[in-house]
């Protein structure tokens, strides 16, 4: 089987390097960063931290060099989904998004017919070209993207390969509950942290605790309106992550983006809650306010 990872940043590299340890899977990676591509081709793609792995990966910065692949995994930042898919769609049968937020699958479906919805928990950071730090292990949930679904057999094949490679992945007929649980959690944690400069654990305390819960309540209402049953309580996860022995001091990625002056994923988190809410007749004024504030920031 041939699998290509589109966007070989931290999360993409976790999938690519682990899959690259399997004998029966040929792994390709597309990323525009040439030094990273050259290092991966020269020495393999290396992970260190929560797991030490060197995977055999064929990397390229040229989308035309991608061979035909049965499966694709999109792991770019959400704001680059459309551009990356337009460049690489020719190579794929089915494509799975493992990106943050909601709304990525819709963008993928503009370029390929068979789409898989995905939500992943593992996290890391790029240390140097060809080398990624694996900070957090965790599960991935995937399922057919209902409006433009990949066959369940493709979902299962991908889950089987990832799990065998060391990335536990669950094939579900409906992966929306996992995805929206994470969207609701992230929308509250990320946007409030980005605006206040505080860590996840601090966001879970006064004076922002009540606000975080109100922001999550709006997200729940939008999920309800879509007929989605959350697989876990985002509020419980919020409190769990806020524990001193879990991730109290973690700076959510949107805060890191704001501090580094990078574009954020707000459109796919709070912005997505607002947009899906509008589609299903649910107002989300707090998420709209947070979206406007984060997008307005300079």
């Amino acid at each position, binding site marked *: 089987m041939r699998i290509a990872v589109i966007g070989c940043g931290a999360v993409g590299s976790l999938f690519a390097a682990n899959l690259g340890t399997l004998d029966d899977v040929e792994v390709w990676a597309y990323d525009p960063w040439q030094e990273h591509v050259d290092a991966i081709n020269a020495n393999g793609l290396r992970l260190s931290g929560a797991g030490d792995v060197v995977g055999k990966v064929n990397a390229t910065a040229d989308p035309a060099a991608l061979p035909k692949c049965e499966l694709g995994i999109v792991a770019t930042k959400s704001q680059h989904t459309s551009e990356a898919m337009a460049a690489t769609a020719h190579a794929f049968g089915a494509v799975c998004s493992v990106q943050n937020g909601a709304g990525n699958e819709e963008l993928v479906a503009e370029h390929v017919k068979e789409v898989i919805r995905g939500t992943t928990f593992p996290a890391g950071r790029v240390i140097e070209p060809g080398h990624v730090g694996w900070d957090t292990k965790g599960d991935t949930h995937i399922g057919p993207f209902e409006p433009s679904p990949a066959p369940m057999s493709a979902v299962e094949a991908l889950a089987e390969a990832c799990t065998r490679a060391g990335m536990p992945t669950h094939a579900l007929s409906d992966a929306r509950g996992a995805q929206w649980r994470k969207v609701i959690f992230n929308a509250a944690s990320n946007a*409030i942290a980005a605006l*206040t400069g*505080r860590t996840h654990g*601090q966001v879970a305390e006064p004076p922002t605790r009540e606000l975080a819960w109100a922001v999550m309540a709006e997200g729940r209402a939008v999920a309800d309106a879509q007929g989605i049953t959350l697989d876990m309580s985002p509020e419980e996860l919020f409190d769990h992550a806020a524990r001193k022995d879990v991730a109290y001091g973690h700076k959510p990625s949107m805060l890191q983006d704001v501090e580094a002056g990078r574009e954020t994923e707000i459109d796919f988190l709070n912005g997505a809650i607002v947009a899906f809410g509008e589609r299903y007749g649910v107002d989300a*004024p*707090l998420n*709209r306010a*947070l979206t*406007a504030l984060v997008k*307005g920031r300079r």
Partner: protein
Amino acid sequence: VAIERVCVVGAGVIGSLYAGHLTHVAEVSILTRRGEQARKLGEGGLRISGKSEFTAEVFATADPDELADADLVIVATKATQLEDAAGALAGRFPTAAVMTIQNGLGAEELVRTRGDWPLISAVTFMSGVRHDDAHVEYELDTETWLGPFAGTATHEQAQEIEALLKAAGLHARAFPDLRPAQWSKLIFNATVNTVAALTNLPHVSAFAARKEDIDLGNLVHDLMGEGKTVAAAAGVELHEDPWEMNVEACRRGETLAAEGHYAHVPSMLEDVRAGRPTEIDFITGALVREAAKHDVPVPLHMAMYRLVKARECG
């Protein structure tokens, strides 16, 4: 009684602009918090540049015991320092009227707890930039609005102060009741200051942009809408629509920017940038308390309040 002696409490931007200009028409003393600033003002005078250009000789001190009696006391500290300032006034100035100029609501009530002076409520739209302890640049030469507070003073007293400020070269307008104007400014400030503090944006045209759903202007508009609902519930008919004030301020900012000036940085953004406590409790806090008093839900202002409070914690 003619106003011949004025004491200005607080020599930040606004206090300095009053004190400097009033030296043209009255004997002025300044009470500062820091002795070092008082010394600098006493030594080299108070320099005003920009819309006015002069250096005024002033008497300044950090010791209230050194203050001479006065006919008018202008309390121009930040709302966060009002409590200390009011304490310094207690037992002094038996014949003076006291004018409060703080952002938000509640300054008059607080001063009232320290003495039974006739109180004049005021809001100012002047702005400036502080260059150092004894030099302030006069940026926007807009009006100060004033009126008697809750029957403690008369409209005539407010008109006398209006005449004094005008004679000093400032712009002023006395109202029989300031609440409509005070509330217009409260709603304007609660919105523009918090949005600026959280976005790190000076007051630029984005605050009036309403093309897309998530454009910042829509949030500004919605926040002002909540504020107007509170004002209506409190029985206050606004003097000016805060949204119109915002659009006008953005337009003026654009003209200034085209002339090469910088955009206005609202004070709460200045405070956040400098890592100082903000006036959030006196501005948005006042609006939220009024809302609770009248059972009006203000979820957006509550959100802004919590975000700015959290930002203050760093």
